[in-house]
């Protein structure tokens, strides 16, 4: 039976970043993921914001990890070559009723030790962002906040961890955890078993079930779905900063933000749902997004929507992250209820968790040859024409465009199939290369990419899936 020093349940951004942090040390680490790819839960469907840290209640773990996590995440993005941008953000008040909320957030930010906060007038806000509504009377400007591509970040973190020796097991849906002789034995739904001395629970919406399986299920996750609408790049320049609304009757409000890839994103809504799989969208919520986004930025052209999606966040009553060693089960770590600002905190959480494990007895000796950088997966697209021609001369696949909306070449698709963590399905290729993310949403390129996946894996197109499991695309060969 395979035996590791540390097992991590869940390859979202938190699990991935912890794996990378652990990969610095002479440890055997195995990351267990129930889906066919990493970043398949809340990680792939959230706002992608690197929060400044003004929002969490002072004194909470969220406040502390956000404040230190913001610069740590920017640094990790640089090391891992993940698309990110410090684009600043604003929380906007619409009229005198909402203005005190801006002042409260400013005070809260100061208490949290956040620098670069400024309260500005509506006119100043519109000077910075001409597309903002004339109804905005006051705003909090947050200069240290930014945007990042959350699944690129996770793929890079896991890839970097794997380059440094971490093992990734996919389609490993944990259904039993036993602890005997100081060792966790973890079984999957399809009969695989691994053992580990430490077990870290980063299972997102399933964290409460994993905790219960391990013998310390003291909390219940309340899955909360947030729906989003993503607009074509023609709308991407509508605003340069992330535009928040003050919290009000309709929840935390709807944000309008550019993405690092140049699209415009609006959302999220917030509804209680049954489970982490409840990623459906509804007409009412999509209508609400349009109505509330137009309140901040009246010019958003919703005819340019290219997709809508929903991400399910794992929240608990009380609201703070649950990050601690189990009181009941030795060497079992809870890393649960990682909802907003979880993405911003992924690196600070990872460092915090590794410290926590060390205090619990995990022996950390640094590897001599640890390499925390990862080669840029978008390197080809950033080359000039002469460099590209050199690459194409060596490998003609880099000359052949497969996805025309995003200008992705066959060479880049092949890279996504061969570089850790390799893409195994269409969505995996899409998240790594952006093929199929454009306005045609894969209409033209998906059969071609299916063919490349089939050729690469020595199967035919009936074996190719959208996102693993029974998500097959072609049912039979004619």
């Amino acid at each position, binding site marked *: 039976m395979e035996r590791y020093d540390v097992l991590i349940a869940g390859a979202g951004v938190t699990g991935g970043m912890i794996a990378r942090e652990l990969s610095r040390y002479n440890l055997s680490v195995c990351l267990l993921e129930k889906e066919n790819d990493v970043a398949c839960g809340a990680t792939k469907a959230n706002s992608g914001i690197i929060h400044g840290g003004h929002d969490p209640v002072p004194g909470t773990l969220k406040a502390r990890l956000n404040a230190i996590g913001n610069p740590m995440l920017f640094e990790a993005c640089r090391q891992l070559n993940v698309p990110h941008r410090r684009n600043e953000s604003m929380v906007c008040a619409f009229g005198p009723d909402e203005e005190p909320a801006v002042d409260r957030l400013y005070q809260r930010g100061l208490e949290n030790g956040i620098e670069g906060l400024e309260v500005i007038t509506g006119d100043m806000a519109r000077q910075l962002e001409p597309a903002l509504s004339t109804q905005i009377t006051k705003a909090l400007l947050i200069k240290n906040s930014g945007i990042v591509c959350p699944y690129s970040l996770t793929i890079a973190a896991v890839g970097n961890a794997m380059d440094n020796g971490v093992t990734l097991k996919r389609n490993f849906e944990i259904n039993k955890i036993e602890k005997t002789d100081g060792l966790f034995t973890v079984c999957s739904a399809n009969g695989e078993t691994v053992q580990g001395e430490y077990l870290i629970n980063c299972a997102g919406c399933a964290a409460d079930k994993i905790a219960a399986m391990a013998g310390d299920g003291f909390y219940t996750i309340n899955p909360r779905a947030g729906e989003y609408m993503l607009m074509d790049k023609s709308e991407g320049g509508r605003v340069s900063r992330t535009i928040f609304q003050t919290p009000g009757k309709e929840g935390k409000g709807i944000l309008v933000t550019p993405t690092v890839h140049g699209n415009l994103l609006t959302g999220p809504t917030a509804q209680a749902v049954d489970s982490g799989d409840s990623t459906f969208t509804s007409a009412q919520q999509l209508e609400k997004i349009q109505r509330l986004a137009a309140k901040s930025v009246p010019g958003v052209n919703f005819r340019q929507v290219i997709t809508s999606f929903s991400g399910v966040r794992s929240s608990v009553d009380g609201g703070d992250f649950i990050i601690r060693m189990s009181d009941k089960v030795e060497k079992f770590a809870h890393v649960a209820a990682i909802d907003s600002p979880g993405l911003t905190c992924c690196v600070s959480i990872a460092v915090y968790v590794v410290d926590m494990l060390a205090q619990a007895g995990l022996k950390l000796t640094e590897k001599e040859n640890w390499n925390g950088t990862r080669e840029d997966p978008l390197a080809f697209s950033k080359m000039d024409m002469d460099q590209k021609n050199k690459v194409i001369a060596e490998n003609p696949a880099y000359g052949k465009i497969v996805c025309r909306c995003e200008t992705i070449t066959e060479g880049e698709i092949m890279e996504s199939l061969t570089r850790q963590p390799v893409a195994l399905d269409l969505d995996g290729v899409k998240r790594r290369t952006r093929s199929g993310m454009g306005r045609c949403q894969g209409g033209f390129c998906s059969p071609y990419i299916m*063919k490349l996946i089939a050729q690469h894996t020595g199967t*035919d*197109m009936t074996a190719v899936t959208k996102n693993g499991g029974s998500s097959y695309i072609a049912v039979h060969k*004619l």
Partner: protein
Amino acid sequence: MNRKLICIICPRGCQLTVSGEKDNLTVTGHACKRGQVYAIDECTHPVRTITSIVRVSNREDCMVSVKTATPVPKEAIPQVMAAIRGMTVQAPVKTGDILAENIFGSRIVATKDID
């Protein structure tokens, strides 16, 4: 017989009515002679050109498009499709190549070149 159909000869789409006995059908509602002929053919021996694909056995993941060289009886469509589904061909194939003879009074021909 008293059957209503929409003429498909041109985009105008006349509403045709065919009435009378088998050898003595009358058509009303047509705006031209072609519509009248279509209506009677459609009621006595409707025919269709069938198009499909056939696997090219000596090329990887390659299909050649085919059609019936002339229209076949409408009621024979399932059998014609069954015949086409049972075929494979070897490249090279040229547009117009006859791939099968005597398929309900027609032939299966290639509609694409495969080198």
